[in-house]
């Protein structure tokens, strides 16, 4: 068996590959369940179907989708421009810290202006955190993969420090968590579920990202910078602009995701506010082919994986760390399946008789 490069990438394979990866992942997941000594069919049903069995389950899915979708859109815009932002987790955290800080500072103050202020601070917090790697890349040529990643750890430490120290709830029995946010600083919920309107903002962000990438000059420059950096330079497109734009958008989206979590289902600041959404969003971005609409579908799938893992823990006592294993496996399978986009498999037959000694050519 041998790989032969296609003349042009296969358009069909571009979308068949993720389906192939998802299908293989279901089979491997079943095998993993067997290895963990649980009935694979019951477990697969709990993982993929049970979460969708009720209207409330669907609302929970949309709720989990929101941060994944927001973060993944930002990551995808970056990767399309060859800017590797691994820092969504940190930008998410700093969005929650900045917005949460405003919510705590305003205290019980009411008024229509509180929530917009809190959300804006969240977006600004994420953008500010993403501005650091952008400035370091532009000013000092420091590669964003490592700087964004390091800043994830720093952001987590800052959050942990705040809720253990200055922002700890004085009436909280010494638990490391802030006061709960006032009603005016909390997102409204819909239809008696925990879903907040930010889900629709995220769903709207996808077509906006598509418009930006496909139908604006700025998006065109981003894509050229990613596909052909040399061409972008010759065309006089500013590399600075590309880095700043993609990182600020990503930071703003991740910051919004962060504040939407703490001003939504969580309702306060605590040491752990994300089960790794920022990292899972990297997988979502790739699974969605770095295309906004693909990412919507991929974020739903990833959200299902999170919800399903919760169910597995509840009903079969399986560890939550299963989620990370399944996520990593899915990305591996996708990367392997992606080979078929650029290559075709050639089954080479045994050397032909023409090469036999003594034969005429």
């Amino acid at each position, binding site marked *: 068996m041998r*790989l032969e*490069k296609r003349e042009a990438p296969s358009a069909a394979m571009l979308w068949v590959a993720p389906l192939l990866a998802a299908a293989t992942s279901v089979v491997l997941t079943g095998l993993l369940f067997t290895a963990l000594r649980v009935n694979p069919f019951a477990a697969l049903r709990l993982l993929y179907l049970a979460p969708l069995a009720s209207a409330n389950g669907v609302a929970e899915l949309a709720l989990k989708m929101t941060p994944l979708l927001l973060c993944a859109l930002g990551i995808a815009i970056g990767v399309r421009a060859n800017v*590797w932002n*691994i820092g969504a987790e940190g930008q998410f955290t700093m969005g929650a810290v900045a917005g949460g800080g405003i919510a705590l500072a305003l205290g019980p103050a009411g008024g229509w202006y509180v929530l917009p202020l809190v959300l804006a601070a969240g977006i600004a917090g994420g953008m500010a955190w993403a501005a650091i790697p952008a400035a*370091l890349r532009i000013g*000092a*040529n*420091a*590669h964003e*993969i*490592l*700087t964004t*990643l*390091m*800043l994830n*750890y*720093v952001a987590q*430490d*800052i959050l*942990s*420090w705040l809720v*253990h*120290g200055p922002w700890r709830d004085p009436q909280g029995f010494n638990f490391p968590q802030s006061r709960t946010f006032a009603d005016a600083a909390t997102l409204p919920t819909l239809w008696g579920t925990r879903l907040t309107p930010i889900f629709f903002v995220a769903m709207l962000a996808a077509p906006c990202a598509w418009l930006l990438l496909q139908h604006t000059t700025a998006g065109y420059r981003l894509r050229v910078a990613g596909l052909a950096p040399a061409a972008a330079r010759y065309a006089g497109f500013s590399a600075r602009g590309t880095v700043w734009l993609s990182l600020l958008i990503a930071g703003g989206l991740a910051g919004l995701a962060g504040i939407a979590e703490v001003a939504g289902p969580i309702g306060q600041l605590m040491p752990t506010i994300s089960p790794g959404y920022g*990292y*899972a969003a*990297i*997988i979502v971005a*790739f699974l969605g082919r770095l295309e906004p609409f693909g990412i919507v579908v991929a974020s739903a799938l990833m959200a299902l994986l999170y919800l399903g893992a919760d169910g597995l823990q509840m009903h079969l006592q399986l*560890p939550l*760390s*299963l*989620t*990370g*294993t*399944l*996520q*990593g*496996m899915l*990305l*591996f399978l996708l*990367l*392997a399946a*992606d*080979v078929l986009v*650029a*290559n075709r498999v050639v089954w080479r037959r045994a050397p032909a008789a023409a090469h036999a000694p003594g034969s005429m050519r």
Partner: protein
Amino acid sequence: MAEAVLILSIVVATLRAATPLLLAGLGELVAERSGVLNLGVEGMMLMGAAAGFAVRALSGSAALGLLAAILAGIAMAALFALLTLRLLANQVATGLALTIFGIGLSALTGLPWAGVPAPGLAATIWPGLAHAPPALQQVLLLDPLVWIAFAGVFAVDWFLRRSRAGLALRAVGESAEVAHALGTSVLRIRLAAVLFGGAMAGLAGADLSLAYTPMWAENMTAGRGWIALALVVFATWKPWRLAAGALLFGFVTIAQFQAEAFGLSLSPDLLSTLPYLATIVVLVLISRDATRLRLAAPAALGKPFRPTD
């Protein structure tokens, strides 16, 4: 005398904190010199840490634990090699996948051993450690992995600069096409380099779970794999500079714990940001001179090679 012991203890603590960074960094340095960028160091380290701890707990043998850690690292690296070398997948994305997968799988497989206390490697080798005089105790704390890490600097430096295989490896990392045209087996050399990187990352993980903080906890590497990656850049791909960088970071790491002794009362959360901030600072310092960095980097780093026959 007390002061001498204090200074000795700081030196020993620095060496011990530098060891996992140095082990993982040396492995990644060799892989990168062959032209392969493996961002999965963190994941390989975690698998090594979990496998090493589990096998030591099951077998009672630290040596078997170390062996298991090396094999776990190699297995993870083989997965990376299959995808990037054989199937020509994007190295950056595959490395990230390896890290995410390693974090999850190590948490899953290590679960039964989370929080189980275990004696450190030095205490296993020297049962009388706790009763030794303070100065001797410090010296004995330098377990074999510390020595292996620093001897590894000599070995890797010699290998890269003086051996035929090292020359071939560097040639592959500078230009796979030219090396291929000269009859060098590019993929075989890259595979060996990637697997070596996995073995060293696995060993680095075991150093954490068996020697440095003898226990297993989910995500216990806390970004050390990424810091090791940054140190390879900081070292401009040279083993000796890597050792210097690892020592510097070892010192920064223990400075967290020493700060309190010197009357500096900062929150432990803020102090724990030090290594991460220091990583950013050294990256900025080394990257500022873009031309120098580009000249020092292996020219084929991150570029896939498709053999033509």
